[in-house]
Each structure stands twice: as C-alpha cells, then as structure tokens.
C-alpha cells in the first residue's frame, strides 16, 4: 500500500516528461490536416464550383480558433473534396473538405514575444498574434511598480525599464485556458531573460 511513494516518483516522472514535452513543443506552429463540411449555395454551382468552395472555406476557417488545434493561421492547400450531399428541404450541398493549414497553439512553458495592449493595476495584457496573454502583477518582478496616468505603466525604481502600451515583451506562458473557441494564457516575466525587449519610445 505504498501508493504515495510510487506516486511521488510518478509525479516526478510526469513533471520531467511534461518539461521534456514542453521543450519539444517550443514551436507553437503546426502544419496539420483538418476536415470541415462546407455548405454551398446552388448559385455557386457551375464550372468554378471548386474554386468557389475553396474560397468559402478560407473565408470560414482562417482566423478562427478551435480549442483543440489552436488558431488557424493560413490554409496552405486543399487535399481532398468529397462528394457533395444535397440537404433535404433546402438546395444547399454539403461538401466534406480536407485541407492543410498552419495552426498556432500556445503551450505552457513556452516563451514568446508579445506586444503590450493594456496596462492595469492588476497586471498587463499582451497579444502574441491571435492569442491574448495576461501577466498579473505578482508575476511581474518586484522592483517594478505600477504608475497610473494617461499612459499607465510599470517602471523599475530607477526608471530604466518601462512596460507600457505597445511595448514588446518576452514572456513565458504559465498556463493556458482552452475553451471550445478560445485560448487564453497567463504569462510571467519574472524569470531570467524575460521582460521588455524594445520600447515604443525608443523608436520615436
């Protein structure tokens, strides 16, 4: 009945495995094959049916997010279009389409660069492409203090480093929340080599 002894080892193993997995999954872009059923109105039937279908697919899918695969960034190609099925009652036809696409999915432990969108007393929000990341103030280094104003920001005590809107920061994903259609992340800049990369004021 020494369940805990082995389970502690198991949890250690799990942690190491997860760490290894996270290292391998540093690249958060994937090129995968997805399938979708596209409904097409009869007005599009004709010699260019296939093109119309692909256009509709791209319009429907690009930019969306599925919790499982992540954000679909771009469709690279269409693999297969199945036989269309005429729906009863309406004239719409449903085609099952297999397509290749690039998806973006952030993972826990990943480090990526993001652009600050909003600074709050409780932390700041940043965007890395389609995904939003929130860094709460307790994951901001202790020497950075919040300063309210028309441009709220976080500043170090000596004023050398400033985090404000449109800054680029490098952050680490601490956790992700995956809904059916939404991915939201929590990040930290408290570790080494994280924090502000470039300042918008430096450019100006």
């Amino acid at each position, binding site marked *: *009945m*020494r*369940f*805990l*002894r082995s389970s*502690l080892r198991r949890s250690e193993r799990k942690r190491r495995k997860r760490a290894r997995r996270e290292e391998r999954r540093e690249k958060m872009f994937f090129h995968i094959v997805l399938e979708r059923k596209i409904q097409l109105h009869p007005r599009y039937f004709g010699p260019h049916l296939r093109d119309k279908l692909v256009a509709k697919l791209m319009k429907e899918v690009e930019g969306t997010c599925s919790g499982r695969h992540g954000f679909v960034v771009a469709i690279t190609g269409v693999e297969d279009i199945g036989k269309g099925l005429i729906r009863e009652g309406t004239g719409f036809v449903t085609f099952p389409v297999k397509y290749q696409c690039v998806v973006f999915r952030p993972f826990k432990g990943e480090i990526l660069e993001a652009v600050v969108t*909003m*600074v*709050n*007393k*409780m*932390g700041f*929000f940043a965007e890395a492409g389609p995904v*939003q990341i*929130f860094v*709460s*103030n*307790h*994951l901001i280094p*202790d*020497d950075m203090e919040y300063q*309210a104003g028309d441009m*709220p920001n976080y500043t170090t*005590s000596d004023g050398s480093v400033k985090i404000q809107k449109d800054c680029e920061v490098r952050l680490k994903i*601490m*956790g992700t*929340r995956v809904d059916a259609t939404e991915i*939201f992340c*929590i990040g*930290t800049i*408290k570790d080494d080599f994280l924090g502000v990369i470039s300042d918008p004021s430096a450019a100006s």
Partner: protein
Amino acid sequence: MSLEPFNRLVKLAARAFYDDITMKGDNQPKTGRGDNRGIAVVVLDALARLATVVSLTQLRQILHVLILFNISFLALLFRSKSGVSIHPTTSAGKYNMTKPRKNCNNSCCYLHLFHTQQKIFYRRQWVREEDLAKALKLHSKQLRRILRFFEEEKFVTRDHRKESAKGAKIFSAAVAAATGEGHQTGKEGEEKVKMHTHSYCCLDYAQIYDVVRYRIHKMKKKLKDELDSRNTVQTYVCPNCGKRYSAFDALQLISFTDDVFHCERCDGELVAESDKLAADEMGDGDDNRSRRREKLKDLLKRIEEQLNPLTTQLSRVKDLPVPDFGTLQQWEARASAAARGYGEIDPNDANKSSQVPGYGGTPMPSLGDTKVEVDLGGGVKEEAQPEGKPVKAKVLPPWMIKEGMVLTKEQRGETSVEADATQETTIDDKKQTDMMDDKSLKDEYYKAYYDAYRAKLQETQAIKQEVRVSASDDLFGTTESSHRQVGMKSKRGDDDNDDVEWEDDQPTVDTGNAGTSYKLAADLNMEAKESEEEEDDDIDWEEG
C-alpha cells in the same frame, strides 16, 4: 517487533500534527479550561498501545493466579517468521501455539486453561469504539468525533456493522482480554435479535506512513513555492459577493473606467488573493518583500528542525514491512480461529463456524493434532460461501489421505488437481490475506509442486519399494482396525491394486496430470503414512 517502530511513528506524528486539535465546534465557546486540546494525541496513543503485546506485568499476574489454582500450564513465547508452522502433538493439557502472521515477528503468549477458562493475550488491532471509550474514560460521542476526524485524516480505518448482541460478544471472545466473556447463551432464533450498529476502528499503518510523508511534502512545497514565487495562477476575490475569479477570467474582469478588476455580478473591486504566508501583516513595499522572504526562509528552517525526529523515524520505517490486519471480518476470523484451533468448545463459536475459514461446517474437535496448514486457495472458496450454506466436500491433498479413509472421489482430488486446498487448520492465515491471488497462479504452483514432488519420489523409488510394500500390509492392518469398516474391503482391494499399479508404473514418467493424480495420491499416501506412523498411532483421522 515490527509494530514498535510504526507505533512510535504514530506517536510522533500525533504530537507533531494533532496536539492542538480541539474537538469543540466553531460555535461553542472555547474556554481556557474546557478546550480539551490534545485529546486526539491521547486517543492515538491508546490505539497504538493496544496494538502492542500485552505487558509482562499483566502476564505475571495471570501466571501467579494460575499457580494458585494449581493448574498446570505451559506458556511459550514463540517467535515465528514463516506462515506455516508444524508442532508436534502432545497429550491433553499442554498446548503450544504460535500465531503466525504475515511478516510478523511479534511474540504471542497463549495460555490455555483446559475446561475452565481461556485467556488469550492478543493484540487488539481492531478495537470496538465502546471499549476504547471505556478504557480512556471518554464519552463515546466525543471519542466518535475524534475517530471520525482521524478517519478523514486517513490515520484510522473504521468499520461499522450491525450486530446482534451475540455478534458483539463473538468479537469480544475473539479478543478475550478479560475473563467472563464466555457467555453461554444457548439458543438462537428464539429471542428477538436486535441489531445494533457497532463501530470498530483500527490503526492503518500503511496509510499513516504515506499520509505523514505527504503532509510534510506538501508543507515544504508550499513554502518553497512561496519562496520561489511560483504561485502561478492568481485568484481574485470580490469582497462584496465573495465570488472568486482566477487570472484566466481576467478578460471578463477588466473595466474601462478604472484600472482595477471589477466583479461581474456586483461590480465590486476585486482583491487579489495572495496566499502568501508571510504577507498579511506587512504592506506591499519593497523592503517588506525581502522581509517576507526572510520570514519564509525562517519558517522553512524551523519546520526542518522540528520535524526532524519524525523524518528520521519515517526513514527507519521505510524499509520495514508494514503490519496489515485486513478487514474487520478477516481479523476477527483469524482471531477466533486461533482461539478455536485449540479446542475451545464454545457453542457460540460453533454456531458461527462457517464464519471462520477453514472449518467450513466440519468441526474439528480433535485436540493437539499435528496441524500443518497450507492455506492455498482456501480463502477464495471461503469468500464464495456465505454464512450458513452447506459446504461441498473439500478436496484433501494426497498426503492427507490415509489408507482406509472413506472419501469420495472428489475428496481424493481426482476431479481436479487444482482444487487441492484444505483448511484443516487456520492457524496461519497468511495465505488468506493473499486471497486476491489469481487462481491460475495457484494452479501453476500446485502443478509445479507436484511435479517436483513426483520427481523426487521417483528418484527414491528403488530404495523404499520393499519397505513400503512390507509396511503397507502393516498399515492396512492397523488402520483397518481403527477406522470404520464401511466399504473397507472394497477400498482395501482398490488400495492393493493401487500398490501394484503404482509399482508397475514406476518406470514410466507420467506427464499428464489428470491421469496420474490418483497414482500420485497413492505415492504420497505411502510416503505420508510411513513418516507419521511411528508418531501418531492414536491419531483419529477425521474425514475432512
């Protein structure tokens, strides 16, 4: 003494964690006087104490009493490591007993007062809660609350069962620490049987070990995380409505008016919930943070040094086998079987004989027999048979079968080799706790065993052949006279033939099991008989 380090662990853990647990509810006033802190430690200590061997002083007292009454006895403290023990029989009046237990090195003293009383000094792993309350002079409600608390902490396992008053007495008989327990109330079923729920509790050493380690681990982890600021996901609480949010909900919480999070429902300002241990009194300034770190480090250091005896005890206990007492039923059955194995004629117990594994409805009143118990797979059968159902004939192993025993074919094991389990005695319930073993494993074991045995036999055939042949006649003569005559002649004829066949079949090596099981029975038959013949002339072999 495998229990001693575990009991010490229990005591240390009780003092480390539970010495200020009060059993009063939150609403009740806790006065300086009536708080009753530390009672939990007392209870744990008592349970640990009850699980150890009875003290020698008590033993001496009883011995003294017995000497006064001029009753001869023999008390033997015996250490037994294995599960199987074989004792030579003695004439009536002297009984030696071991109580072999799984991985148990504890000594057990067993005094038997023939015909009068019986005192078993037994370890009380399973304790009835009423008894414990009486022993500790606590109110049973209070004790029950404490035990409930410990059950939730996974220190203690409890078992509640409805028992009639008689059933409760069975338990007492099994424990039988005091005299006067032998209630000989006779008939069942005539009186109204009122079923009260009795609760029993037992220290669960394996879980205690794990739980204590887990607690310490969690404590240290919490402090370390705090120190490294690894509290990843921040939670926010609304002071108005008490709603909790996590940082993942931050998107829904932002307001455009000011830069604080607002509650979705009541629009109150959310407060970041910090579970920082050292944060509360201080503010949020910079140097306060470093002070907080210092405080955390100090806490960590103090934990290490104060829990040091506990951790050393844990490491000592780590490699020892954990005492395991099974469920209440198992333990009780073991205890009463141990009691009964020495001829305790107790009508109460006899009625409940089917409760006990190994008796299976066929009482064994023979006293002082050679009892070699190999409880292989008997437990499985036992579980399948609920109380009171008639028991099918048990298969006797070949070496049990003496010439002239009137046995059915089934009992001879001809039907299947695998059903070769006897429960003549259940002194050793070590195998019972292995009840969960696969039957297939057991079958392989039997086959391997018998193969090995057969091979060994065939090696020594030539030497013993003549001896056996000559001895067999004698044996036939003697056994014939002492056993029943029913069907004797035909049996004898069969046995004779068996001998002949057996000799003929010597050179051939039988590989199949079914066909040779009977032959093998004969072989082992002879072997067993020969060895025992000198010792046990007076043994009345009962049919199992």
